[in-house]
């Protein structure tokens, strides 16, 4: 059932307004905090208000402008979009709290929080985009809005990373635009409402090229190798930004774009006929394993996190590429699971950096005794990535693997298992460093992170366990993902 409703438009618009107000209030801390938190809260409330309807199959839509007939700006809330916006707005609220604590003594806070709030708006725009053009528009806006955050430190290193980020993502954007234009040419519509708008009659080769163009375009942000170069460099940004880039918005926007292309533009049937899924799955598998191997060698904590992100994102791509319902379910739910696990880790990285000034793993000896709660949260997230049952990571891995079996390609199950062993190989040494490295008898004083950094970290860690053990409770992300999958596979 489709309902015309103002809320799909209000969610991005109101948070956009709040973002602009943040710019206007400038350097008045109270009002800046007030409007930053309002932006995040308002969005969360609006998004949540649509959740019960979406779970029952209602689709909310709102069209704004038509540029030319059939092409316009429109918002539409289906289960997949709802899923993405729910995850990003929940995390955004938590991250805003963290950012307020983290950025306390930084410069240019008005700019930082202003753009931070603008990102809220654009991400939800991506999630709710009704057609490819709207998606593209917000996708590009996200790039622009995150640039000032990436270069926030304004060191030469940060500026270089920012340039690299822009070059990669803008070139990616060009490919998306190219794909969008070609799609319109062939399909006569850009709608993302169906289960595929393209038709095999266009020709296999042409469709393959179109698919590749889209995968390159969105793959830059989704960091499919070898398009991942910007991500490790962008680690110079402050921790809340890294959290935002990695867990919530930017990379997920890429992964979300790929999901939209696979399920809504091409459709499962067409991709099966074209036989393109396997190639994408292979590319994703290579990324999963290679990035994990590189992560093993990184000593800088945030760089290790960055390569882990690259590896984990390809879980989502792999799940989409397998073209089976269970794999798709795993892919979608991994958006949430990876987000909560990774954001916990970034919060930990930021808290350690702020409290002790340490950024390299070999310096972490004994840190578990100085910051027991922070490292406890890290341990939970690490166990999640390894895929220990009852944590969020297990749920994703379970459905992805079953989906891989369903597709008949058992090799991808082996890839997933290998990946979780590699995850153990690069996360456990950090726990070892933190809790077991120092010789017994040494007494370290507890020196925890400030509450504003610690609480968001702990909240996310608790979420990791809730997402794993209560996955089947209605209203949890899994139920929403299931609604989306049922629609895409026409069940």
């Amino acid at each position: 059932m489709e309902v015309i409703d103002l809320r799909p438009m209000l969610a991005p618009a109101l948070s956009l307004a709040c973002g602009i107000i943040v710019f206007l209030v400038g350097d008045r801390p109270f009002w800046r905090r007030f409007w930053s938190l309002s932006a995040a809260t308002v969005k969360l409330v609006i998004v949540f208000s649509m959740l019960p309807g979406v779970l029952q199959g209602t689709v909310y839509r709102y069209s704004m402008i038509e540029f030319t007939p059939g092409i316009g700006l429109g918002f539409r809330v289906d289960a997949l979009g709802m899923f993405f916006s729910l995850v990003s707005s929940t995390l955004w609220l938590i991250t805003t709290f963290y950012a307020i604590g983290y950025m306390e003594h930084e410069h240019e806070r008005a700019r930082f929080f202003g753009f931070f709030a603008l990102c809220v708006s654009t991400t939800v725009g991506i999630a709710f985009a009704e057609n490819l053009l709207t998606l593209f528009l917000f996708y590009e806006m996200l790039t622009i809005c995150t640039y000032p955050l990436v270069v926030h430190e304004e060191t030469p290193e940060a500026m270089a990373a920012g340039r690299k980020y822009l070059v990669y993502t803008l070139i990616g954007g060009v490919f998306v635009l190219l794909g969008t234009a070609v799609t319109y040419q062939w399909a006569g519509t850009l709608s993302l409402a169906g289960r595929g708008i393209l038709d095999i009659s266009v020709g296999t080769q042409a469709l393959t090229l179109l698919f590749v163009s889209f995968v390159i375009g969105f793959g830059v942000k989704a960091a499919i190798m070898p398009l991942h170069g910007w991500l490790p460099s962008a680690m110079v940004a402050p921790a809340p930004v890294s959290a935002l880039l990695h867990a919530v918005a930017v990379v997920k926007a890429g992964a979300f774009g790929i999901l939209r292309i696979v399920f809504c533009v091409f459709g499962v049937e067409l991709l099966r006929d074209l036989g393109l899924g396997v190639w994408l799955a292979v590319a994703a598998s290579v990324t999963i394993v290679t990035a994990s191997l590189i992560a093993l060698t990184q000593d800088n904590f945030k760089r290790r996190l960055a390569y882990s992100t690259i590896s984990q994102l390809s879980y989502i791509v792999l799940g989409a590429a397998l073209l089976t319902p269970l794999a798709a379910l795993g892919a979608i739910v991994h958006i949430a699971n990876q987000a909560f696990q990774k954001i916990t880790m970034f919060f930990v990285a930021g808290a350690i950096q702020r409290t002790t000034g340490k950024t390299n793993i070999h310096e972490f000896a004994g840190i578990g005794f100085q910051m027991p709660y922070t490292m406890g949260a890290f341990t939970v997230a690490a166990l999640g990535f390894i895929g220990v049952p009852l944590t969020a990571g297990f749920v994703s891995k379970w459905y992805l693997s079953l989906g891989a079996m369903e597709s008949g390609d058992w090799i991808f199950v082996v890839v997933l298992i290998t990946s979780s062993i590699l995850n153990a190989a690069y996360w456990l040494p950090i726990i070892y460093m933190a809790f077991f490295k120092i010789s017994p008898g040494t007494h370290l004083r507890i020196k925890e992170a400030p509450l504003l950094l610690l609480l968001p970290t702990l909240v996310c860690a608790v979420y990791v366990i809730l997402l794993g053990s209560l996955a089947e409770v209605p209203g949890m992300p899994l139920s929403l993902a299931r609604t989306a999958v049922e629609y895409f596979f026409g069940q």
Partner: protein
Amino acid sequence: MSSSAILPLVVLLPILGAALVVPLARVSERARSTGLVVVTVLTGALVVWLVPGVLRGEHYSIRLFQMTPTIWVHLRVDPLGALFAVTAAVLWLLAVVFSFGYMADGHRKNRYYSFLMLALAWTLGVSIAGNLLTFLVFYELFSILTYPLVVHEQTPEAMRAGTKYITYIIIGGGLVLLAIMGTYFLAGAQEFGTVSYFESAQVGRTALLAVFWCFIAGFGVKAAIMPLHGWVPDAHPAAPAPFSAVLSGIMVAAGSFGILRVLHNVFGVELLRELGVALPLTILAAITVLVAAILAVPQNNLKRRLAFSTISQMGYVILGASLLSTSASIGAYVHIANHAFMKGTLFFCAGIFIKRAGIHDVSELAGIAKRHPVTVAVFTLTSLSMIGTPPLSGFISKWFLGIGMLDAEQPWYLAVLLGGALMAAVYLLPIVYTAYFKQPSGAVQRLPERQGRMEAPWSMLLPVLGGATLTVVLGVLAWLPGLPLSLAKLAAETLP
């Protein structure tokens, strides 16, 4: 059924105990010790309380919460699970009490006791898991969250052993997960019960074989089937003695327990016969029994020698189970309990030698019987049992295993059984000989004449004596209903 409602308590109680460790330690050391004993005894009592019902054939079972639309976290007690749970709970009580003496001057005791109690919770969870996924949940927690116990001493050797341990276990866990996912994919969501997972599923032979060997390789790492045993001889000497006891008696056995579940509840005897996979498994087990026993002989470090003995003895369990005859299965099941108490006791003795005399190596034990008469006497008794001397508990296991081999019309495995027993004599009796009859070594001579009134504190002697009593009781009175043998018999009759 209302009594089923206590099943979650079996797991929750030790977790509560773990949570209480730190607050109680704030009060006093004594409060912590009391709390630990109370919690362990209560947990043990709960588990034991289930036994009469299980023997009557009652089915305790409870579904807790959903993990997927068709799979629940499901707790269920069957005779085999009850056998393992009772063994674990009782051995844990001994180990906890022994720890009070052993760890008296140790460091980070709160961490040690917390994780020890958590490990009990996970073990009991493994025993009463009602389906494969629930099993996996507790199995993985048990594997990963015991790392702090393995490396507890934090010496360089302990850290290396810990790294080796976690590497082996994670890879093994990955294989188990792979196999479990394969099973759910091929057979659908089922529960452990009177029907095996694959009984009604139409599955191709290749897939079944792949899943089977994946399971064996995964669980085999923990069950120390050769050549997957690498972590065992390093982890045991490195860990604190009371945890070595648990490591040998329960942790390695948890791998074997997993294999038993796979053989019976996942595949079922019929299907295994059809697939013809039992024979290669039997051969692997036979090799493990003999080779590990031979490797044990030259080890000078006492705990290392005992670790190889564990590998060899756990081979018996797999050997017995893979023969697919009822008597051999009874022998295999009852050996899990018997071995746990025997090996636990031996490690407790080794712990007394380490803490009271500072002796780690067999060669330095010369003449120690004069200073530690009780400990050496118990060591001797338990060694004899391990070799299979009637009427001690080790004999009971061997007897049923032997009968089973004859039943299965494969008498040549008797050679393995006797060979293993012979080798046990070769690696254990020289220790006894050294302790009694050799001239006191330097280490022993350097010991002060009298260390208090007794050779060791009560907290260390009681578990040793308790273990010795169990070794005798489980041998002489093995037929008493409620003891492991009755559960093993029932398990062998009822498992698919």
